């Protein structure tokens, strides 16, 4: 098998056995970027010299017999929303086009410690607002399976890089489905960890009570190892939780005995495409054949999740994005009358449509006279959504559902209809509101050869259970042969 087709575990084994050097591995992925990325357009910046230099250091450490980190020598693509010291971090926005962070995000520090090697930064919807990566100020990324289709978003570059074999691993962020939906569209594994599992320090903020950083990979075990590398407490993020991080990479291959999988009617109703329905049902059969029990559950408030989310997330965004003032960093307009006009013109010129829309929506929802009716109401519904999950997890170990209603839509198909785009997150958004972990694992192909994902949700801090459950499916099947029509 070619180097770029290998999983993280296989690459680590090849290095351990002296069959491949990190330099050879990094070079192979850089070559693949050169071959594929003019078509896919996942990368915003590539760092070939630095990556090869770092790979050489890893190789030297290997020959010197030094102790190495968990992912030493393995290449990765980073969503351009994480601050990288001395390396441009754009967030997909004209506002931060020339922003060079003076510090590393916690996740980036942890990645460096693990020995992983960054190939570069990848494309995203501006400020992570979107579901197609079309909202990037810089380029439109194509789905590696068919570049006329969207890779999903907002972590579309991260998913497309892995889906096109341009990296075995990538980092994404998920505020309403932004890891799981693109993972599903591009046929890769993606996990949103429990809120608080991974530090948000140095992550450019969108909606602080919902944002979470997570792993994407070409197999479940790679994602498990990557989460192990980045998870854990950090005093610089007061919402990061101080609880032990299990060794996900050790446990991922152990199947779960007597697994009870919850299935909610609310996830299989009107709007779900036939191909996705079939694919998800087939995957449940695979679990049944391994002794899992499928149990009906109810999530009665899930139909209100999108509405609650599109009040809560824009409200938080309107507050978070107030920091872009044309003074401290970022874009400043050249033409203005006074201070207030300088703020408004800088923001008006540098933010794209979707970011403006959400700032407007959030400002409205928080404004005097509307706060109780919109923002507070949404927060109450949020609690009811969480309570539904708490009750469901008294009966089942995980909840299985589609990730999206259909496979990847075409580029441009939803870009003029914000509400339709918002509704594409209908199955993923609840997990963010409730703060729960969720994984998307590829389970089949549509009639026109686009990947379909299965979402598994778990109770807080049970990422280990989700990796093991996802691995049970992956081990038993070759999803690329499971075509529905």
């Amino acid at each position, binding site marked *: 098998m070619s180097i770029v087709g290998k999983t993280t575990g296989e690459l680590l084994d090849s290095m351990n056995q002296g069959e491949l050097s990190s330099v050879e591995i990094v070079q192979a992925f850089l070559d693949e970027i050169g071959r594929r990325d003019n078509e896919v357009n996942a990368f915003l910046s590539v760092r070939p010299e630095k990556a090869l230099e770092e790979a050489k250091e890893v190789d030297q450490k290997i020959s010197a017999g030094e102790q190495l980190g968990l992912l030493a020598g393995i290449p990765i693509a980073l969503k351009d929303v994480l601050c990288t010291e001395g390396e441009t971090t754009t967030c997909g926005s004209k506002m931060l086009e020339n922003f060079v962070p003076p510090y590393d995000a916690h996740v980036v520090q942890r990645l460096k410690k693990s020995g992983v090697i960054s190939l570069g930064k990848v494309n995203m919807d501006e400020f992570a607002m979107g579901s197609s990566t079309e909202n990037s100020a810089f380029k439109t990324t194509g789905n590696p399976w068919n570049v006329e289709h969207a890779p999903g978003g907002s972590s579309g570059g991260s998913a497309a890089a892995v889906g096109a074999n341009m990296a075995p691993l990538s980092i994404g962020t998920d505020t309403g489905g932004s890891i799981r939906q693109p993972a599903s569209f591009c046929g890769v594994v993606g996990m949103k960890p429990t*809120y608080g599992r991974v530090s948000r320090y140095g992550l450019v903020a969108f909606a602080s009570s919902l944002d979470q950083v997570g792993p994407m990979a070409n197999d479940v075990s790679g994602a498990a190892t990557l989460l192990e590398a980045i998870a854990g407490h950090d005093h610089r993020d*007061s919402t990061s939780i101080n609880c032990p991080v299990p060794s996900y990479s050790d446990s991922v291959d152990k199947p779960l005995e007597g697994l009870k999988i919850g299935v909610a009617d609310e996830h299989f109703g009107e709007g779900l495409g036939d191909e996705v329905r079939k694919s998800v049902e087939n995957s449940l059969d695979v679990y049944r054949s391994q002794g899992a029990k499928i149990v009906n559950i109810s999530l009665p408030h899930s139909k209100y999740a999108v509405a609650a989310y599109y009040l809560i997330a824009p409200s938080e965004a309107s507050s978070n994005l107030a920091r872009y003032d044309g003074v401290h960093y970022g*874009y400043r307009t050249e033409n*203005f009358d006074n*201070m207030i006009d300088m703020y408004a013109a800088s923001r008006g010129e540098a933010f794209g449509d979707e970011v403006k829309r959400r700032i407007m929506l959030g400002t409205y929802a928080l404004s005097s006279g509307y706060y109780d009716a919109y923002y507070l109401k*949404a927060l109450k519904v949020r609690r009811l959504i969480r309570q539904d999950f708490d009750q469901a997890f008294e009966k089942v170990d995980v909840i299985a559902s589609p990730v999206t209603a259909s496979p990847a839509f075409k580029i441009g198909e939803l870009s003029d209809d914000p509400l339709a785009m918002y509704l594409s997150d209908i199955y993923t958004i609840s997990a963010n509101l409730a*703060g729960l972990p969720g994984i998307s694992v590829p389970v089949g192909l549509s009639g026109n050869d686009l990947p379909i994902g299965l979402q598994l949700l778990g109770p807080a801090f049970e990422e280990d259970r989700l990796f093991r459950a996802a691995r049970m499916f992956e081990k038993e099947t070759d999803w690329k042969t499971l075509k529905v029509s």
Partner: protein
Amino acid sequence: MSQKLTRGDVTKVALLARLKLSDEELDTFTSQLSQVLQYVDVLNEVDTENIEPMAHAIEVSNVFREDEVQPSLSREAALQNAPLTDGSHYLVPQILENATPES
């Protein structure tokens, strides 16, 4: 909960949000935001009597640490991304009228 959103409302919100919008943007946003607000009205179906609002996914209260000096960014690093500085301060347009800037 929502009355119909007018172009005047959108203009006011744009001012609050410090966003300079074109006439065309004001028109588009008036119709698109109305559509979204109409959609979120579905929340009115839910009985939330006696339900506490949930502002955060994991409910943590204040997190304290010892009040000790920690390393932080140097002045140079803090200023390096600013659009305009004098080398030691951020520079902004004049705010007070009739004030003479010191040179």
